[in-house]
Each structure stands twice: as structure tokens, then as C-alpha cells.
């Protein structure tokens, strides 16, 4: 029995239960809000156990893929429920779980209004994300891809901050519109395969073997690329991101920055590079230019922000430019760097959003001019903030540095000019990160500072564990590199071997 369907279903069911538990008595106070929170936590623990099982299970099938699951869904259209897991999916699944815990432990307990619905939506988003990381039937992938948008939209739109409605609708329209282009690409690929072989199928491995003319494969690749570029985000289509991140509730920001954006990177690796290797290679110069532009633009914009969450959001654009650069650098090193960068960025930015959210909960503002000198009043929070800010600027020894360094090496081999420009982005990163740290944590305390409470010790334990992950990732990335890359690269090489019947 493969644990993969359980991985997808557990959060969805847990969310439904969390909602029902909260449902009948919404008049009550703390006790009842806790009920749905507890259910959510239990669902996550169960999910973790299943993931541990999936990780350490002896692979039941030959080939590089760790696990498979297939069930018929819509046979007349050649659609099946097909889930497959390799090292890349597994590492991103772990990232999802690792970030969900701080989300739930630190940020969602404060939700008082409709806590059940909030937890349901949170878990529904996680369901969509996990499904996206596992699905290898293109229809199923698209289904999950769209599915994760709705709960996220509601999370932003109902529990967000002052400009939430506009931000939520912008987020939805951008991601959905680009998703439709991906749908057309999927259908184009399926129909091309159908015309070639007469078999209607949405199976990833079968479709990977489709012979396409260079122009058609370029068009189809672009359809996928635009959808993933909006999610990642890549510069001209990043418009939704600063608003959505800023306006989302804390847990939503963490999910968005930490995991949701990674689906874009994951999709680029899994679909752009694997399905259309030649087209991706031809497109690489443009993609790399976009990546460099993103790094510089994001960093530059980040320097000019006064809103803490907006600053972190723009810095995300900059960091994810490295992911784009690494993915399209065409080398194994670049790919590994991109994956390490995705994981490290998820951890560090997720944690930064948690800290920014905590500051907002305490001071009711995100304006850096109105926050100052938190170090004396909140040493623990400030220390954690300093750590993650430094991590995200790429301090050697932490995960982000490992990722960025690998990407830079790979880029240097392809285009030294791009690598030099990218380094300028790193300098800007130092400027905006240190500016934020100076303003918020290190500056002299403000006179009108309200009394605030610091992070309790148990919060520090959670943040501390994220720090440990980042340090391990930075000091000894080798096991992650070998673990998370090789299997995706070998699929296209030996589709038949992978295709072995489950």
C-alpha cells in the first residue's frame, strides 16, 4: 500500500474535521478555537508520520523513483490519479511539513474569527501544494495547481490586512490566468501525442516521449513557463506578489513565501526542463536574463521599502531569481543550487514572515519608521530576526549561501557577465537586510514604544529548529544535493525503465 494518496488526503480530511469541530458553536470563546487548532496539529503530526514512512520505506519499484501510485480516474479521457515521488518531491514535501508546523504553532492560534474555517483553508492549501508536488498525471497536476489557489485567495481576502481584497483578487487573477495558458499547453501536448500515437493520455512519462517539432515544443514550453514564472515569480509577472505577501495573514504569508512559490520552481524543473529539454535549452538565455533582472530588481525595490513585509516580499523576488538562474543554467550544479536555494529560501523567508507577523501583532504596524529598537524589549525575537535576515542575505555557513554559491558557479560557466551582475544583487541584499536589521532591531528604542512581550521559550524552540536546518543545509549540503537531484534528471533519459508496471 503506497502512502502517497494518504499524504494528499490526510490534510484535506483533517481540515474538514477541523472545520466541523468548530462549526456548531461559534459563539464560544477560546476553548472552541483551540479545538480546530488541535485537530489541525494532529493532522500535521499524522502527515509527518506518513512522510517518515514514505521516506524510509524500501522502494518497492526498481528505478530512481521512490514510490508510485496509480488509480483510474477518467478512463475515457486517459486521465488517471497518478502520484509519483522522487527525491525532489520528497525534499519539497519535507519543506512543506517543516514550515507548516511553525505556521500552526506560532501564527494560527491567535485566529479568533471563524478559526475552523481558517484551519480548513490552511490545510486545503497544503493539500493542493502536496498534490502538486506529487502528481505526475498532467490533468491531476493542473487540478491541484488550481485547487491550492482558492483557499489561499479566501485566506488573504478574509483574514488579511487593510488592502486585502485587491491583493487577493490580483493574486487569483494572475495565477489563474497564467494557469489557463498552462492548461492550453498541457492540452496541446496531449493532442500532439494523440495525433502521433492515437492514444489519449495525460501521463507524464508517456508524454515525455512525444516527438515535437522545435517550434511547437517552444510554444508549449512557454505556456508552462509563464504559469510557473507567475508563481515563482519572474520579474515582469511578479506584480501580484508584493501585495499578496503584504496583505496576507501571517500564516498565509509563510505558506505563500515558503512553499507556494516553490511550486513554480518545482514545475520548471519537472515540466519545463524535463518535458522540453531542447526548447528549454534554447530558451535558457532569455530565462537567465530574466533571472538576473529579477535578482537586481527585487533587491533594488527591497532597498526602498519601509513596510517590513513588503521588503521581505521583494527580497523573495530577488532570491527566487537565483532559482530561475540555476534551473536554466543547464548544468547539474546549477540545478542542485536552485533546489538548495528553494529549500533555504523557504525556511529563512518563512521564518522572517513569522517574525514580521509577530511584530505586527504586537505593535500593530509594519512601517519601519514606527518600529525601532526592539532589541532591548524583545531580545529573543530580535535575535531570531537577525539570524534569519543574515541567512537570507547569504551569509556563508547558512543554507542560502550554499544555494547561491552553487548557482553562481554554474552561471559563471555559462555567462561570466551574468554572474558578475548577480553578485551586485548580493551586495544589494546585504544593504536591504542590514537596513532592516538596523531599523527594527538595533536602532535606539523609540520613546513612544508600547510595552511588548517577547517570544516565549517554546516559540524559540520552533524557530531554533528552523535555524538548525539552515545551518546544516549551509555547512553540509552534500547529502541534500545527492538526495534531491538525481532522480528527476534520469527520467527523461530512461522513460521505459521508470515505466515498469507497479
Amino acid at each position, binding site marked *: 500500500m503506497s502512502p502517497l494518496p494518504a499524504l494528499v488526503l490526510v490534510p484535506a480530511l483533517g481540515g474538514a474535521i477541523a472545520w466541523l469541530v468548530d462549526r456548531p458553536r461559534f459563539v464560544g470563546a477560546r476553548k472552541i478555537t483551540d479545538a480546530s487548532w488541535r485537530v489541525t496539529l494532529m493532522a500535521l503530526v499524522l502527515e509527518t508520520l506518513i512522510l517518515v514512512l514514505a521516506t524510509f520505506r524500501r522502494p518497492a519499484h526498481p528505478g530512481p523513483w521512490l514510490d508510485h501510485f496509480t488509480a483510474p480516474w477518467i478512463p475515457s479521457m486517459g486521465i488517471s490519479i497518478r502520484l509519483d515521488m522522487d527525491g525532489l518531491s520528497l525534499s519539497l514535501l519535507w519543506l512543506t511539513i517543516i514550515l507548516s508546523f511553525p505556521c500552526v504553532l506560532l501564527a494560527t492560534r491567535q485566529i479568533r474569527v471563524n478559526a475552523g474555517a481558517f484551519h480548513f483553508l490552511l490545510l486545503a492549501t497544503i493539500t493542493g501544494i502536496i498534490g502538486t508536488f506529487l502528481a505526475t498525471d498532467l490533468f491531476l497536476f493542473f487540478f491541484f495547481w488550481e485547487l491550492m489557489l482558492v483557499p489561499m485567495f479566501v485566506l488573504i481576502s478574509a483574514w488579511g490586512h487593510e488592502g486585502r481584497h485587491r491583493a487577493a483578487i490580483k493574486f487569483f487573477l494572475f495565477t489563474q490566468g497564467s494557469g489557463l495558458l498552462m492548461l*492550453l499547453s498541457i492540452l496541446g501536448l496531449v493532442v500532439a501525442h494523440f495525433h502521433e500515437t492515437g492514444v489519449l493520455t495525460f501521463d507524464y512519462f508517456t508524454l515525455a516521449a512525444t516527438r515535437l517539432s522545435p517550434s511547437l515544443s517552444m510554444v508549449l514550453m512557454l505556456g508552462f513557463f509563464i504559469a510557473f514564472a507567475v508563481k515563482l515569480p519572474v520579474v515582469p509577472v511578479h506584480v501580484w506578489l508584493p501585495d499578496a505577501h503584504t496583505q496576507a495573514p501571517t500564516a498565509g504569508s509563510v505558506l505563500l513565501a515558503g512553499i507556494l512559490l516553490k511550486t513554480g520552481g518545482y514545475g520548471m524543473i519537472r515540466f519545463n526542463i524535463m518535458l522540453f529539454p531542447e526548447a528549454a535549452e534554447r530558451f535558457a538565455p532569455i530565462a537567465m536574463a530574466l533571472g538576473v533582472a529579477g535578482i537586481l530588481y527585487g533587491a533594488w525595490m527591497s532597498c526602498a521599502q519601509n513596510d517590513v513585509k513588503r521588503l521581505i516580499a521583494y527580497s523573495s523576488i530577488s532570491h527566487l531569481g537565483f532559482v530561475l538562474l540555476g534551473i536554466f543554467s543547464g548544468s547539474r550544479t546549477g540545478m542542485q543550487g536552485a533546489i538548495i536555494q528553494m529549500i533555504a529560501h523557504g525556511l529563512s523567508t518563512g521564518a522572517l514572515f513569522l517574525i514580521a507577523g509577530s511584530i505586527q501583532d504586537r505593535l500593530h504596524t509594519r512601517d519601519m519608521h514606527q518600529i525601532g529598537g526592539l532589541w532591548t524589549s524583545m531580545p529573543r525575537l530580535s535575535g531570531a530576526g537577525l539570524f534569519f535576515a543574515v541567512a537570507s542575505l547569504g551569509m556563508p555557513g547558512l543554507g542560502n549561501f550554499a544555494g547561491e554559491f552553487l548557482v553562481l558557479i554554474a552561471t559563471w560557466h555559462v555567462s561570466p557577465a551574468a554572474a558578475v551582475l548577480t553578485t551586485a544583487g548580493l551586495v544589494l541584499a546585504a544593504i536591504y537586510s542590514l537596513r532592516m536589521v538596523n531599523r527594527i532591531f538595533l536602532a535606539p528604542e523609540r520613546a513612544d514604544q508600547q510595552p511588548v512581550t517577547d517570544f516565549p521559550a517554546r516559540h524559540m524552540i520552533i524557530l531554533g529548529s528552523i535555524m538548525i536546518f539552515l545551518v546544516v543545509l549551509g555547512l553540509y549540503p552534500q547529502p541534500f544535493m545527492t538526495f534531491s537531484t538525481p532522480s528527476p534528471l534520469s527520467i527523461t533519459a530512461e522513460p521505459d525503465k521508470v515505466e515498469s508496471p507497479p
Partner: protein
Amino acid sequence: MIAHDLFVPSPLLVLSSGTMLMLVSIAWRRSITLSLSIGLLTLLLALAGTDHHLTTGQHGVATLFIQDRWADYTTALILLSSICILGLSWRNLLHDTAHPTDEYPLLLLLGTLGATSMVFSANYIPFFLGLEILGISLIGLVAARHHHLTASSEASMKYLILSGISSAILLFGIGLAYAATGSLYFSPPVATDGISHGIPIAAATMILVGIFFKLSAVPFHMWIPDVMEGASTPVAAFIAVVSKIAIFSSLVRYFSAGEMQPFLNDTMTAVIILTILGGNLLALRQTSLTRLMACSSIAHVGYLLMAFLSPGQLQSGAIVVYLAAYTASTLGVFSVISALAANGDTDGTSIADWKGLFFSHPFLAVIMSLMLLSLAGIPPGIGFFAKFEIAAASVERQRDLLLAALVIGSVIGLYYYLNVIRTMMTPDIVQIVTYNRKNYPELTGLALVLTIIVIVGGLFPARLIRPILPAPVTIIPRSANTIAPDIDTAMRYAIHDISP
């Protein structure tokens, strides 16, 4: 042959007898409960009889009616929708004791009869009769609204005049087609030797214009928002669902004979792009939910026509699923509107009235959101799969322009659907309790049933398609068989008539 025509589509028979029975009962004693019960019973009986073929159709013989899986499927959809609409209006009619309105269920039944007759017809005459029965019942239904008599009369007059004009154009087209071919068979006229090529083209164009008018495709769409806004909520649902299914079903049958002529193809493409973009753009600025649904139904007709214009392996599945998705989601939206509508002055159709619904009626708000998302084509609603199928069918035929329109239209559509959801999520700070929002348990139940259909259909569409999927696939060759000899005979007659 006469026996065949009389008895073949059993729903027609049941519906006609039910109508007469209701007339008798009304003449005997006016009782709204009795009339509603007779109406419901008739519809249920007709639904039960949908699958039964009393006699087998004779091939090669020109018949008035044809009964195949496509007709059965659309009839079932029409009857189910009519049952829903009867359920939606039930409580309102019972409450309105001041005006005994037996005419309402009678007209509803007649309208359903007209729609069903259109679906089954294989000849211009029953098609036109059905269309007119439906249209004339609609005039009465739209006007049957005592609290808003001015608005509803205005809407009814608009419908009367515009529908009259379109019927006239359609009838002219039918006349030309008969002149060109000498046959009343329900298929595009083919030019014969004796007459100029212009006449069949003119005939087909005029018939198409008439159909587009009733279908509210874009250059001919102006009436639908006004009429639906003037009508009561259940009647608006009837216009949006039943009459559109009937006319679309006839359109598919009309062109099922073979390849469409190239000029019609181009015209259709232009009309579809206009319909999708026009409907969606019109819906953007609406403040009334009924008007918004009217405009979005224009856009949905555009999507349906896209599938209609993309013949191929995926076409039948796309049409079947999309019709079901559109019907279920639209009825769901209207049932939530009815469930929330007060029996007082306001009927809750203004979008501003929906503010804060997530806090006052969370259950209905969730259902409403699911329905709207399904209409927008977002999982897990069935609308997602339906839109996917439409896109698949169009990609298969490489209709690039139409696909671009689909993408743009969907994004615009998403915006206004989300806008409604956003309004429902905005907390209503000033609680406007000027009217009493009464909760109807049976309407909530109906909405729940539709929700289950929408979600189960969205998650397991395979089960939904399989029994009905071959419908248009089998019907196209089958009706081609029946038509081909008929055209031959018709041509012989025509030649015979022209050259005595």
C-alpha cells in the same frame, strides 16, 4: 407513421396530458397546491418516461420527431431543471394568497412542453411550434409578478417584441429553406440545381440569426439582462437554463448532418468570440446579481458554442459535461438567491445586499461560492472539468482564436465571480435588516443537493460521462442516415415541383 409521430417521445405525451389535466383541474376548482402537485407529478412522470422508446423510429421516413440519446439527455436536463424551478417557486406561490396564480405552474409546464418539443423535433414545424409555446409561456411567466408589476410588464413587453421579431426572422428563414429544398426536414438547406445558391445561404443565415437571438449570442443579446432582471428569480433561472438548453440542443441537431459550410464556420467563429468577450465584459459592471447571471450566461453560451464548433473525439463529452455543469451551477446560484430572498419588497438580487453573508449565513455563502467558482471553472466544482473539456475539444481542432477568447473571457469572468464572493466576505458593519431574510429549509436542501451534484461531478466526472458520452457521437451518424435518404426524396420532390 402517424402513430410513430404521436407516441415516439413519451415525455411529450406525458407533458401534454399533464397540461390538459391541469387545465381541467383549474376549471373545476382553483387551488394552487393542486396545480403545483399536478405539475410536479407530470414532470416526474415525464422524467421517468424519458428513457422509454414506445416505438422504434423508421429509417428513411421523414418523421416529425426523433428520439435518440442526445434528445433523451437534454430532455432529462430540461425536466430536472423544471422540477428545480418548480421547487424554487413553490413557497412564493403558496405565500401569495392574495392572487391565486394557477397560471404560473400551468405556464411552467407549457414552457417545458415547448422546450421538450424543440429537443425532439426533426422537422421545422414541431420545432417552431415548440419555440413559440416556450416563448409565449415565457411572456406570461415573466409578467407573473405581483409586487413588481411595472418592472415585470416592461420585461415581458421587451421579450414579446424582441422574441416576435426573432421568430419572424426565423420563420422567414424556414420559408426560404422550404422554397429551396421543398422539405421541412430540420437540417441546413442544400442548394439544388434549379435555384440560385443564394437562397439556401440566406435561409440558413436567417434561421441561425433566429436561433442566436433565442440563445442570446452577442449581437443579439440585448434582451436577456433586462428580461431576466424583470422576471422573478425562478423564472430568470428558467430563461437562463431551460430555454437555452432547448435551443442549444436544437442547434446541435440542426447541424448534426455534416460539415458546416465555410461561411457559416467563419460567422460562427466571429459570433462566438463576440459572445464570450461581450458577455464577460457586460457582466463586469453589473450591480444586480440576476443581471450578472444573465451576462455570464451569455458568456457560457459562447463556451458551449465553442465546443459545438469543434467536432472531434472530445466534442460530445465536452458538450454533455458542460451542459450539466452549467445547468447545475446556474440552478445552484438561483436556488441560493431564492433561499435568501425575502418575501417582502427586496428580493436580494442586488449584489450590495449580499454583504457579510459569510457571517450571517455561512452555509449558504459557502454553497454560493462553490457554485460561482464552478461557473468560473475552478476545482473542485464540475465547471472546472467542463471548461477543461471545452478547451481540450478546441485544442484538438486547433481553434486558436477561440482559445484566446476563452482564456481572456475566463480571466474576466473570474474577476466578477470573485467580486461577488469578496462582497460576501466583507463584514457587514451596518447591519441592514430592513427586510426579513427568511431561511427556507427546502430551498436550502435543494441548494445542498445541487452542491453535492456539482462537487461529486467535479471529482468523479467519469461516472457522469460514461452512460451519456456516446450520445452525439452515435447521433451524428445515425441522423445522417436518416437524413440522407430524406434529402434525396426531398430533392426529388423539389425538382418535381419546380419542373413539372
